[in-house]
């Protein structure tokens, strides 16, 4: 069928894209020079022989192409090598830290989606009312404020002044809240998720409201009302699905770049996620870690784009093959 072929082609395209990124990434890292020399050259007592043997140990002595294909073959088996700083397999670290990141990012996007749908419906069905203007103003403000500012504000209010929510980390270091890892974990999630929800909701609401206002003006909405459908059904059944089509692109990007935007959140809340890890890896020139994370971010972005395209086909019959 047309749709299956379409997805197959998109998959092939995505694979090519990932391959392209891997080449560029490898070339750029390679251009910096031999990491062993950079990392060890300044140390006292480093002879050329030592550097050479360490290089051989890390497989850095072959030609560029040989090393690229060795690396490519390894990452295809989900082997990203060993972190230089932490001396742990990068793949394991990606999983551990990745789960921490997803733990705050996915709920944040989903909550923001639900909240923005509800706010948009309220605003768009009362276009040009005070509520509508309030929503637009609020969403613009939320969209314009930098994420870290909101994060710091949240810490100030809820941790410093009210003292009811933790301001850093994913778990308590000594006494778990109510002696439960689950409750303690959720307790720590509140502020970072809150910050992301705030930011995502603002942008999603701006998009969703204007799209919904546009759709509610369409003839088929008047026609749906004229056939006696209750207003709730007209808005949620008929308008929302159409209004969702332009928002889908942004939602896809949101999922795609959530690892890319993680550094800010995770720095503000000292969250042990991929974002914080990425910053660390770059500061310390942990090559395997940098390359592993970059590839994971690429995977996520390409995967999200692919899912967005598929979602388009599912939601809008006009895109399907006739």
């Amino acid at each position, binding site marked *: 069928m047309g749709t299956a072929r379409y997805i197959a082609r998109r998959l092939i395209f995505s694979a090519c894209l990932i391959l392209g990124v891997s080449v560029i990434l490898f070339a750029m890292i390679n251009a910096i020079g031999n990491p062993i020399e950079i990392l060890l050259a300044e140390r006292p007592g480093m002879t050329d022989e030592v550097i050479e043997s360490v290089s051989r140990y890390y497989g850095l002595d072959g030609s560029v192409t040989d090393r690229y294909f060795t690396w490519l073959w390894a990452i295809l088996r989900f082997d990203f090598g060993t972190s230089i700083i932490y001396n742990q397999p990068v793949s394991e670290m990606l999983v551990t830290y990745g789960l921490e990141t997803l733990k705050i990012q996915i709920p944040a996007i989903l909550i923001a989606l639900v909240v923005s749908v509800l706010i948009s419906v309220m605003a768009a069905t009362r276009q040009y009312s005070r509520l509508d203007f309030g929503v637009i103003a609020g969403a613009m403000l939320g969209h314009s404020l930098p994420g870290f500012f909101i994060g710091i504000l949240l810490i100030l209010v809820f941790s410093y002044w009210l003292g009811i929510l933790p301001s850093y980390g994913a778990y308590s270091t000594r006494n778990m809240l109510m002696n439960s890892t689950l409750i303690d974990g959720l307790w720590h999630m509140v502020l970072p998720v809150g910050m992301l929800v705030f930011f995502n909701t603002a942008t999603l609401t701006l998009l969703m409201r204007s799209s919904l206002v546009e759709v509610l003006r369409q*003839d088929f909405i*008047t*026609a749906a*009302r*004229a056939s*006696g459908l209750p207003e709730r059904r007209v808005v949620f059944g*008929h308008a929302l699905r*159409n209004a969702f089509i332009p928002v889908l692109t942004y939602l896809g990007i949101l999922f795609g770049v959530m690892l890319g935007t993680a550094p800010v959140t995770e720095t503000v809340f000292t969250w042990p996620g991929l974002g914080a890890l990425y910053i660390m890896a770059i500061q310390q020139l942990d090559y395997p870690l940098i390359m592993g994370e970059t590839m994971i971010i690429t995977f996520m972005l390409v995967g999200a784009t692919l899912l967005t395209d598929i979602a388009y086909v599912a939601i*809008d019959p006009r895109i399907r093959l006739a």
Partner: protein
Amino acid sequence: MHEGSIPIVNAMSDPAAAVPVLEVSGLRTRFGPLRAVDGVSFAVAPGETLCIVGESGSGKSTVALSIMGLIPPAAGRVEAGSIHLAGHGELRGLADAAMAAIRGRAMGMIFQEPMTSLNPVFKVGTQIAEVVRRHQGMSRAAAHDRAVELLRLVGVPSPQMRALDYPHQLSGGMRQRVMIAMAIACDPMLILADEPTTALDVTIQAQILALIEELKQRLGSGIVFITHDLRVVAQIAQTVCVMYAGVVVESATTRALLRTPLHPYTSGLMASIPAAQPRGTRRRLPVIAGTVPNLAKLPGGCRFRSRCPKAFDLCAEVEPPLAPPAKGDPDRLVRCWLHADGVAA
């Protein structure tokens, strides 16, 4: 010549004698300072097609939306008048939910643009079935069967398959048939059609006009048919209301109106329709000078005065009433001092 092939259920001889399906009186609808409809009254009998004719800005579409209770509250509102639907009483002032229960069941509406009046993301069968389910509480399967049956009724070929199509897969004519199927899904006693053939090609227009006529015979509904085209009026209407700048300026049976138009606007409209004329140079269409006045700042007196070739002093001073003409048919109405008792010069 094909009349014999249509089963005539409605055997009414005199529509005027029956209880009207819809009775509108003194309807006034405003959009801010704009008096779009400014005191309109008419009645439609079962089995009757009433045409409301007018140009853009005459208020004809606003009349339909006012009857349906579909004037967006943020934009405007029905200020005065009564809308009486047989069996449901006064519609004006009904709560939103009560009004929604009547729409689509007792009265159905057909829109001008078949390309944009169907929801692009749902199958047409689903959209028809939704109306049936809403008003007749059928199961999903029964409603789907009814949707297919309705598609067959409105002349959609292979309705079983077409019910599974999305709107963009159908031609304009087919989409308009789907819209008609939705409008008649619950056998409404009143059908409002707002320029249903304006966007269609001439052969498709003829098909849709014939379909509407056939369905009216079958269902015995009253039809309010809004159009700008007097030729369509000639084809389909029993009675006509001509609207200008928010008011009815003339109403009569179709034949009387088209044979002897009384209001200068009606005769002007008829004259400006191109027809065969002797060849040669300097052929011209008679025109109505000027344009429709701004409804937000209407001058006093007759609304048509500034464009009327026959206007005289009184027209500028007092707005003429809609009344039977001084001479001639007492059943028709005209809003013009030329035909008023004791005024005509």
